């Protein structure tokens, strides 16, 4: 897993397509936080909230804007699993692999999700609908194993129920 974090390879083209309005909003945020101590993490959170993920062009802008070395910005992004440098799908599925969930079958739930979605952890389905991540405790250990889809916490999940759970989201998306 060493050195597993990569920036989006298509970043060069994205730089041109990231809309000017987003960039100017980012610059406003940078201006506001520039002189504040401990600004890096809040700025990264805001940027990810705005764009959905943290592409290289944005991270470099943050590095220059806050006067922080790019290596440090990358180090912080890599340290916290909340941050992502890859675009995510419409829905983010996170599987808890904390101790309680793990011993009660979290790993099997994860395997079922990988099979159903045809992707590995950290990847997004080709249709852009689901991204898969792992988490470390969502605070519902008594009802393990748990997964989160977007902001919904689902409890006592069984591998056999995975397809049914995902279908609800698929149907909703079709309806929209």
């Amino acid at each position, binding site marked *: 897993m*060493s*050195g597993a974090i990569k920036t989006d390879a298509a970043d060069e083209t994205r730089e041109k397509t990231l809309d000017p309005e987003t960039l100017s909003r980012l610059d406003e945020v940078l201006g506001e936080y520039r002189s504040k101590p401990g600004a890096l993490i809040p700025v990264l959170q805001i940027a990810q909230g705005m764009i959905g993920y943290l592409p290289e062009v944005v991270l470099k802008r943050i590095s220059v804007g806050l006067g*922080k*070395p790019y*290596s440090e910005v990358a*180090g912080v992004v890599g340290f916290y699993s909340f941050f992502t440098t890859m675009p995510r799908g419409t829905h983010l599925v996170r599987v808890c692999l904390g101790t309680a969930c793990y011993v009660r079958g979290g790993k099997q739930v994860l395997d079922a999700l990988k099979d159903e979605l045809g992707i590995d952890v950290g990847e997004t389905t080709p249709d852009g609908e689901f991204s898969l991540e792992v988490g470390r405790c969502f605070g519902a250990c008594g009802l393990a194993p748990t997964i989160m889809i977007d902001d919904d916490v689902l409890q006592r999940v069984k591998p056999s129920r995975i397809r049914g759970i995902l279908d609800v989201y698929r149907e909703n998306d079709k309806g929209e």
Partner: protein
Amino acid sequence: MPKVTIDNRTVDIPEGTTILEAARLAGVSIPTLCYLEGVQTMGACRVCLVEIEGAKNLVASCVTPVSDGMKVNTKSRRVRNARRTVVELLLSDHEGDCRTCDRSGSCELQSLAEDLGIREIHHQGEKHAAVTDYTTPALVRDTGKCILCRRCVSVCNEIQGVGALFPQDRGFDTVVGPAFSKSLDEVVCVQCGQCSAVCPVGAISEKDEVQEVWGVLDDPEKFVVVQTAPAIRAALGECFGYPPGTLVTGKMVRALRLLGFDRVFDTEFAADLTIMEEGTELLVRLKKALVEKEEVALPQFTSCCPAWIKYVEHFHPELLANISSCKSPQQMFGAVTKTYFADQIGKRPEDITVVSIMPCTAKKYENKRPEMYDSSVQDVDIVLTTRELGRLIKESGIDFTLLDEDVMDDPLGRCSTGAADVFANTGGVMEAALRTAYEIVTGEPLPFDGLHIEPIAGLDGVKEAEVRITKTVPEWAFLKGKTLKVAVAHGLANAKRVIRKIQSGESRYHFVEVMACPGGCIGGGGQPRFTTNEIRKKRIDAIYKEDEKKTLRKSHENPEVIRLYEEFLGEPLGERSHHLLHTSYDARSRV
């Protein structure tokens, strides 16, 4: 003052001292692999664990302050077992072969394992994937050997203000390196090599070019000229067991001759030449500003240090006009050797190979810059660090300690001045420049005891001095009554402090010297390891001694430099100088 008992020795220790420092004061040695005096105390390596009476857990002594009545045991059975486990765990994930590692014999991990008598590693588990980065001209990084002590991170961020390296990812996956596993040539790295100077193991080293030098020495068709930087003579001895601060100039020359170099020359010749050009450049800028009332970039910054130049290109491109257009002495030497000297011996530039011995890793990058081909071919062909010269001599079988003294060759070696010697020290280029500039302007020697400008000597990070000009020769009358203000910074973070003072309007200077490495070139990234402030001071004193024993101590008195101008260059800043000795630089990306 708190009373502390360390291994049954009770001592008074100043408040706020850490247990590790207190132990050293008490004469007790606690091993550590991550501590870096004055730079880093973070308890990363866990080797310095000690037991405090009454405390449940062992503590890292480098980050735990002493308190009154504290009883510390640094070698109880519990401590010894824990320390051994820590070192065994480090070794279990240390992917390197001591038999072929360039740090074998100077590796702190190897030496600690030896001290602890470790003969078996009880923990076998997963190992990091090792990645070796050969992308830059100066440095090689091997993540397999890295023990994550973070010394390089602290030096690169805190001392140099560059931040090329930082821990990436987390937990077992942690890798110290550039952002997103990029290679070093894709990120902002100034090639200063201070990371390689503090690395306790073989994870960062200079790119070894010893075999390339053997290649040209073995080739009878090649005419090979060697130049040695001033800082080498005060440090090379350390590779052969001499105490720090031993001057080995004569033995070094003898060794180079025995190795087969066709001429043994001195970068100091080019240092004297640099002063002629750079001093004149400063006076011309002052004249333009004061007499002709032109817009001129002031202060002028020195340009001898390639890491500093690259730093400005990345972080302060707005100052590029302030940087002296003079090439560094290494590059002036190459350009002069392959033109002026080549003419003298009836050879073409491409027939001569120039090898440099430098205290510096960034010089390995500088000689390959596209600006450095003014003789029509690459002006300097191969650069070795002090450490590599030590290895070259050892491989040749020469017993350095038994060598006689020898002197360098004419015309580019024998006549260097004391001013060129002090180029090795922080404050030295400024002192050398002022020795000449002051005398040109006033007709009198610089009014400082022993020609040493005390306020800009020594190891303070930022130093300032003022030189008042009370009388002048007629040509420079416009400087009469003026006070020349100068500043000196070493360590690029200190340079950044000076830049901030200038840009905020807090300070006004005419001339600023910057050397990237703490202590100047004597503390360069290519010098024998391990360099502490104590060792820096010893090397600095040795250099001043070398300066003081010279008959000629001002660059403009160097007879070979005078001859070079008479026979070849014309005058400082003249057309030929402009072509061969000066250059300009371009802005680079900041991330």
